[in-house]
């Protein structure tokens, strides 16, 4: 097209018309389609459920405050994971400030984590115990997050493929995640599955990694993002993770010019995914 359409065709137009950009890959289009479907399908379930959940939270919070004000709880025994400082190798770049929606999504996630007990799930990472200061000085007993005595480590090795297929299927996802809790698959195997040709298996592996959590896993996932290796899947795993290191990284990523788009969209999808699990 000329800049003046009334003039005869310029040979330069043929040169411009010959420009060829790389085509979007099929995988890329499928990822975007999958992202869109995740946004739209969950939308219908969230709105009424959120109102119900909000009302339930207000009632429970009111009852809890009433009970604790009259009956102060005994200092609980807790097993805490010693926080390990993580130096994030991803360069910190300045980007635009978070919008109010993004800030609220991040705050909601962090607030949910802070309200959960310190050991919300079983972990294979080393654990240090803290002696509670109570007048009764009860004996220290190592306990699982469900406050039951720790079972001997004799669980059979989990079938990774079966576990991932359970997680990939929405109707059996929670069952699959429980399998991961009870008998975590090897992290190396799950990281290898982040490159699986099937989208649902990659997502399942990412969710499983987020569930397993741990500083070493978090560092590996962050390195994968920095190396642009299965970047999107690594982001999903980090967004699904409840560790402070992963959440700190995600917060930094939302301010990075390179990563903010991907980080924000992954956080939004992760929030929707988490709400779905809660339901």
């Amino acid at each position, binding site marked *: 097209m000329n800049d003046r359409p009334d003039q005869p065709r310029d*040979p330069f137009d043929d040169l411009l*018309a010959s420009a060829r950009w*790389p085509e979007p890959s099929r995988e890329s289009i499928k990822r*975007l389609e999958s992202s869109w479907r995740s946004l739209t399908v969950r939308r219908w379930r969230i709105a009424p459920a959120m109102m119900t959940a909000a009302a339930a939270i207000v009632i429970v919070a009111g009852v809890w405050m009433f009970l604790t004000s009259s009956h102060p709880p005994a200092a609980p025994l807790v097993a805490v994971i010693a926080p390990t400082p993580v130096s994030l190798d991803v360069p910190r770049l300045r980007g635009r400030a978070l919008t109010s929606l993004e800030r609220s999504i991040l705050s909601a996630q962090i607030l949910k984590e802070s309200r959960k007990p310190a050991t919300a799930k079983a972990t294979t990472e080393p654990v240090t115990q803290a002696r509670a200061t109570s007048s009764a000085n009860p004996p220290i007993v190592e306990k699982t997050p469900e406050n039951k005595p720790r079972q001997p480590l004799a669980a059979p090795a989990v079938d990774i493929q079966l576990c991932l297929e359970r997680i990939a299927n929405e109707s059996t996802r929670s069952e699959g995640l429980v399998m991961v809790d009870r008998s975590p698959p090897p992290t190396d195997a799950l990281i290898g599955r982040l490159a699986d040709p099937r989208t649902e298996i990659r997502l399942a592996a990412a969710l499983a990694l987020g569930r397993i959590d741990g500083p070493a896993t978090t560092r590996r996932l962050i390195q994968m993002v920095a190396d642009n290796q299965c970047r999107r899947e690594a982001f999903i795993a980090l967004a699904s993770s409840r560790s402070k290191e992963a959440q700190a990284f995600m917060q930094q990523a939302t301010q990075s010019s390179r990563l903010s788009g991907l980080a924000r969209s992954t956080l939004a999808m992760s929030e929707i995914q988490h709400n779905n699990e809660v339901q």
Partner: protein
Amino acid sequence: MSQVVDRTTFDRLVLEHLPAAQTFAIRLTGDVHSAEDVVQDALLRAHRGWTGFRGQSKFKTWLFQIILNCFRDHLSKLASARSTAGLPTESLESHESGPRLEAQSRELSELIAAEVSKLPARQREVLVLMTYEQFPIAQVAQLLEMTEQNVRTTLHYAREHLREKLARHLEPQSKRHE
């Protein structure tokens, strides 16, 4: 007609236009990964603001407007990080076999695309919308919030800029066309 379309129709329109949206983003950014991020951002905004589409314009125009806004945000972040947008080497296909002329032609096509994607932002937007996306000038003016005269002027500058960059490729080309 000025009414919100139903959600099912809206979802179908988004999925139908997704490949075109991605192609548009690749032409603007020159980079497949950045284009995917821009489109991902655009999808989020479209999801949040879907009630803003009232059928007054074509859906493609509405979606491309969102992509343009996301592209500008992307550029401003890049500018603040002091990086330049352009075709990264991994997006270029390397063909080691085939006739030499065919390979040269392919390299030239990719070079032209790279130069288009390196134009100043406003010139790039005008050129891609008019030359490659075949939008009429009135729609381009509306999308970019410019007058039609401004669009013509910007297009002229863009073409002159490219003519200068591709000058050494023009002469043999024009000789072949004679």
